[in-house]
């Protein structure tokens, strides 16, 4: 179970303000709160808070590293911003680059860069043609990603595949969660040891009335078919309890009456 804390992201108003004003305190507090709640990584996204995104990413990474050694997931679609983040990373545990599309020419740039910088990579099952709308196309992109990892010598445990979750309330999108579950099962058996599977979970419930319930229900369902990581609100205790319970029911941790507490002690 590899929770990636989603909250340090410039699209949240509190973080947008902090990044714009270079106010360290709210960022550092949120970093520590997420660590305490079990985040294995802290996602770090400057959003649209700053004109100079590279400088903002560097500042954000340095600000977080001042208070915790929890590794960071550098979250940007722009290569230059990712590079700025990687330059600022100072952690023997490495980091995650979040993310790269499944286009071969992109993977040829990102994978060597990650290996050189002791970083894992989140690769999306989407290409310049868009997000696949069925199971087969998702699995095909995943196969391309895994093939590229093998070509570049990237270990499977450094690779996270993100099947791209769309909001369930978009017209026509309601079949997608089911397709994703089917695809995950197939992706998980492509390599041994298997790649990690992650997702931006909160996206699933965008604009719905029951955000927390939808998130944690899907998380438990996806865990059952091999999802072992997710970019989530780790401060949502019900969500984390559901995830821990799903892993316990999958026999990934030994049951005890205090299994929730035991799992948190291991985080």
């Amino acid at each position, binding site marked *: 179970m590899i929770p990636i804390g989603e909250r340090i992201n410039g699209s949240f108003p509190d973080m947008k303000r902090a990044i714009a004003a270079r106010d360290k305190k709210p960022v550092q507090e949120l970093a520590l709160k997420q660590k305490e709640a079990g985040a294995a990584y802290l996602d770090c996204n400057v959003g649209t808070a700053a004109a100079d995104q590279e400088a903002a990413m560097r500042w954000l990474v340095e600000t977080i590293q001042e208070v915790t050694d929890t590794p960071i997931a550098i979250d940007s679609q722009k290569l230059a911003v990712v590079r700025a983040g990687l330059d600022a990373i100072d952690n023997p545990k490495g980091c995650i680059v979040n993310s790269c599309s499944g286009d071969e020419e992109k993977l040829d740039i990102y994978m060597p860069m990650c290996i050189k910088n002791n970083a894992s990579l989140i690769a999306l099952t989407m290409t310049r043609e868009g997000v696949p709308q069925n199971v087969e196309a998702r699995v095909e992109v995943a196969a391309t990603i895994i093939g590229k990892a093998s070509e570049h010598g990237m270990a499977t445990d450094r690779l996270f595949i993100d099947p791209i979750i769309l909001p369930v309330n978009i017209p026509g999108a309601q079949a997608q969660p089911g397709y994703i579950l089917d695809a995950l099962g197939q992706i998980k058996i492509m390599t041994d040891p298997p790649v990690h599977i992650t997702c931006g979970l909160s996206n699933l419930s965008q604009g719905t009335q029951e955000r927390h319930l939808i998130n944690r229900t899907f998380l438990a369902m996806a865990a059952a078919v091999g999802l072992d990581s997710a970019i989530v609100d780790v401060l949502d205790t019900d969500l984390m309890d559901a995830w821990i319970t799903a892993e316990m029911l999958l026999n990934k941790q030994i049951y005890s009456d205090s299994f929730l507490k035991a799992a948190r002690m*291991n985080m």
Partner: protein
Amino acid sequence: MQIPGVTEASNHRVNEVTIGATEAEGGTRSHSVTIGGAKTLPFMRSDGDLGHRPLVAVDVLDRPPDDWSDLLLEPYRDVVNDPGEWAKKAVEYGADLVCIVMEGIHPDRGDLDAAHAVEAVSKVREAVGVPLIVWRCEDDAKDNEALPKVSAALKGERALFGTVTQENYKRLTGVCMADGHNLIGEAPIDVNMAKQVNILVSDMGFPLERIVMYQTTGALGYGIEYAYSIQERQRIAALQGDRMMAMPVIAVAGEYAWKAKEAKTPESAMPSWGPQLERAVTWEAMTALALIQSGVDIITMRHPKAVAIVKDYIDKLYAS
């Protein structure tokens, strides 16, 4: 064609627990011992560090045994009235640790008092330099009365005290924490309960690094395979990073083996089974060996001939 080697390296290891404190460390032991530390399944040396060698603890009772077979009593006949002399004999027979079993304080087995318990352990402490284990009588009320005094008497010796269970752990955990001892958490062949005991004990502030796990074991032929699978499951959990399952393990071979009918039945009653002494010693040794192969770090034993077989076996396992 060359077949590539397959190894399963783990980033986690079984905790190391040190038992016994020398004078420089505030105790009176001639040396201390450390158990645990494995980074692999038992004896998978190609996968990683095997950790410390398993150790043999020999049982010494606080008063003369009332239900031992004559064959088991024979090597100790001259010393059973004095736990100190008995402990010397145990060390002479190869004990890495002495395990003082407080049988006599049990209400049904003598109902001796805390002063007697303290006297017994004090005699052992004076007589031998090896690290000490103190094992309860298994009557909760009596244990809670006597063991705190024994713990205080051994303060500074960094002994290993057992056992605490899910139903009865607060008193002994508290005193062992105060007196600097290690603690054995017991579960009835139940991996879930073993984990729960560890959580309860650590909730009281007792350091995880001073806990040893004990699953009540049967002898060979009496459910030992369940103990084997449970030890295996615990070890796998430890190697996967479950801190609540990363404790080294103690198991009881001598007591259970000598309760088995294969050890107790005289040759006259069952001629086809062969000589009783050889049979009983083999039963104890085989019980211990099976448990050692399952990854046990300390094995408690009784007959010197069985101890010799097991120690020789451990030497051979660790001869590079």
